[in-house]
């Protein structure tokens, strides 16, 4: 090095693992491709229109929001994840204008108004879903069964969690249908298998903790068993699988520590059973996670990692 060489000064560490938000988000998108592909297979090409609408609206909204907030727009993939998740939790024949309004809400209200990625308290996709189902209740109760062909129109039917459904099939057929996804339900919630594949991808890349889905699903299974319900049915039906692997594991809106995450998961599991059993709605996953999102700051305040060399101090010592 010649003596006049201009050197760059930076703060340690000068070596990095190479992790990036973008990489994480694209892995999540990869994992989401499985339930998404299943959704297109089960509910037809209309799902693609929903996805296109949601993606376009979400990304444009983020761009405009960043411009209004005078922040740099950066394509980190988080808007894509939100848009896909939002479509996956909507009914299969949701009118496109509702998809548009909902995904704009996800980004503009649930995320950017709170300060953008990392600052939002509620999971944006679920907040959008809650907003849409409260605002457009009538339009969103038309559930269809899986379609016979790619371009076909669906037939309105009951979802597994509504009472009229459960008796129609034998147990084994029912479980099989629920596991592979051949039932009515939200776009991406029906196939437990495809969600599990996505979940395994997230686990393999170390993006989520196994404790979250295990404690969430485990709590629902245990409680429903104690209440005399069919635990397997409770696990496979509705949005629990998708919620447990993709929503309750959201970094931003769930607790920081593993202990906190377990509290979150158990709390959400209890809420699901409470809502499904005694609530006025057939499904409780969305609200269970949103409610626990609200508890996240509180959990983070009290559940902290074990400090190296922690010494318990008496009040007297602290005062001195």
């Amino acid at each position: 090095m010649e003596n006049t060489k201009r050197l760059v000064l930076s703060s340690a560490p000068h070596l990095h693992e190479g992790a990036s938000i973008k990489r994480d988000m694209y892995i999540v998108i990869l994992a989401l491709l499985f339930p998404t592909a299943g959704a297109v297979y089960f509910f037809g090409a209309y799902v693609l229109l929903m996805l296109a609408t949601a993606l376009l609206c979400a990304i444009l909204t983020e761009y405009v929001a960043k411009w209004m907030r005078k922040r740099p727009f950066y394509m980190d993939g988080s808007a894509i994840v939100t848009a896909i998740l939002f479509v996956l939790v909507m009914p299969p024949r949701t009118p496109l204008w509702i998809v548009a309004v909902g995904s704009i809400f996800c980004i503009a209200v649930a995320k950017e108004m709170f300060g953008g990625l990392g600052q939002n308290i509620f999971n944006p996709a679920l907040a959008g879903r809650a907003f849409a189902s409260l605002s457009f209740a009538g339009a969103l109760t038309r559930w269809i069964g899986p379609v016979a062909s790619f371009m076909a129109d669906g037939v309105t039917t009951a979802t597994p969690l509504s009472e009229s459904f459960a008796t129609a099939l034998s147990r084994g057929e029912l479980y099989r249908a629920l596991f592979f996804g051949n039932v009515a339900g939200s776009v991406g919630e029906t196939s437990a298998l495809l969600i599990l594949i996505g979940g395994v991808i997230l686990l393999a890349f170390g993006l989520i903790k196994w404790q979250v889905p295990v404690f969430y699903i485990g709590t629902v299974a245990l409680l429903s068993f104690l209440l005399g319900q069919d635990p397997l049915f409770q696990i496979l039906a509705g949005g629990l699988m998708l919620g447990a692997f993709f929503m309750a594991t959201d970094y931003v809106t769930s607790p920081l520590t593993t202990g906190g995450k377990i509290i979150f998961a158990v709390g959400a599991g209890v809420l699901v059973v409470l809502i499904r059993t005694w609530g006025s709605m057939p499904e409780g996953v969305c609200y269970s996670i949103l409610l626990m999102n609200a508890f996240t700051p509180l959990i983070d305040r009290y559940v902290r990692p074990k400090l190296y060399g922690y010494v318990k101090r008496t009040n007297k010592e602290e005062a001195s």
Partner: protein
Amino acid sequence: MNSQLLVRLGLVRPAGVHPPARKLAAEQAIERAQLPKTVILPLQQHIGAPAKAVVKRGDEVKVGQMIAEAGGFVSVPIHATISGIVKQLATVASPITGQPVLGVIIESDGKDDWIDLTPADPEGLSTEEIINRIKGAGIVGMGGATFPTHVKLSPPPEKSITSVIVNGAECEPYITADDRLMLEETDRILIGLKIVMRVLSVERAYVAIEENKPRAIARMRQAVEKASFPGTVTVEAVPAKYPMGAEKTLVKSILGLEVPEGGLPMDVGTVIQNVATLAAVADAITLGKPLVERVVTVTGLVGTPKNLLARFGTSASSLIEECGGADPSADELIFGGPMMGIAQSHVATPIIKGTNCILVKMSDVREEHDCIRCGRCIETCPMGLMPLMFVNLVKKEDYESLADYHIANCVECGACAYGCPAKIPIVSYIKTGKVELRKAGVK
């Protein structure tokens, strides 16, 4: 169950990271660097009070002659590292802080004339004499922390010290200086250890080496078996996990104990000494030789990475030239390892007692994003802290709350920032936070 399995199962936090080893100079035997024509010796090369110059411009000095005396108890003297003439006492940039400090500049007469050294048999010296010799030789912790060694060897009487841990972990990527020293100067290290065990009157010592250095482990084990000690000495292979070499991590790994918050290893009855420090202690006692040189790993984007035995005050640029020069693409110069090392602003910066490595690299300017609360920094923090909270609180300028999250416990190892997907320079925020908290006067 072993701890790695527990980590893999997600049952315990990894509390550390696994950066690539990149020990480029591991096969290079220690070589003596060319004697520099000029040396720049900053008078603050250690933790504690700066040394006070005792020479003036125009003085003739010999190698090993004291040019600055200790500025207090927690301070050490500094010695001339070449023979020649004191060219000037000037303000120079500190390689530690980058701030201006007083320094002595010596111009070589090309002779390498040493002062008369007074060898001694350690057995014939009292504890006090040994400690005085160590202090007089200007020895500090050579693992990079540069804490005066005589202070570590003079624990207050109420602390009972029962063991010595020899730190040969060398957990930072790239650095091979200690590894080579353990392979080539094994006996000197053990002589130093024996002296330290005697001074502290302990009967137990552990030599901790990361398991990725099997040759050093074997060599040290062999030598320990042959030597006789005033107690039991074992060589322990510790997991290769950064920051294994940090004192507190090492204490936990070797003794299974945690140093109480705000305390020192002596609070759990142990004293840690780096292998290079022990070799320096051996020289100071048996040869009467002051600390004037050390092994520096010159590595990264240089022609041939090497382990050079170099005099303090030698410029980084001349050592880099000895290794075949730097790659033209390199634009960053780090003293120390890549995880905790300090970026230098000038290629002529002199090496000092704590400089175990000169790393030449290409800068990688990273755009910082907002925290997504992934929690990886919490997972990897060896101290059980929540690094992201420090970033949040410093951004909000809520410095008082930093104490609630025990910011003072942070050892600035950088494990958090190493794996941060938002590329937040977390350590930099923490340093700011510590300074602001101190300013706010909150303890």
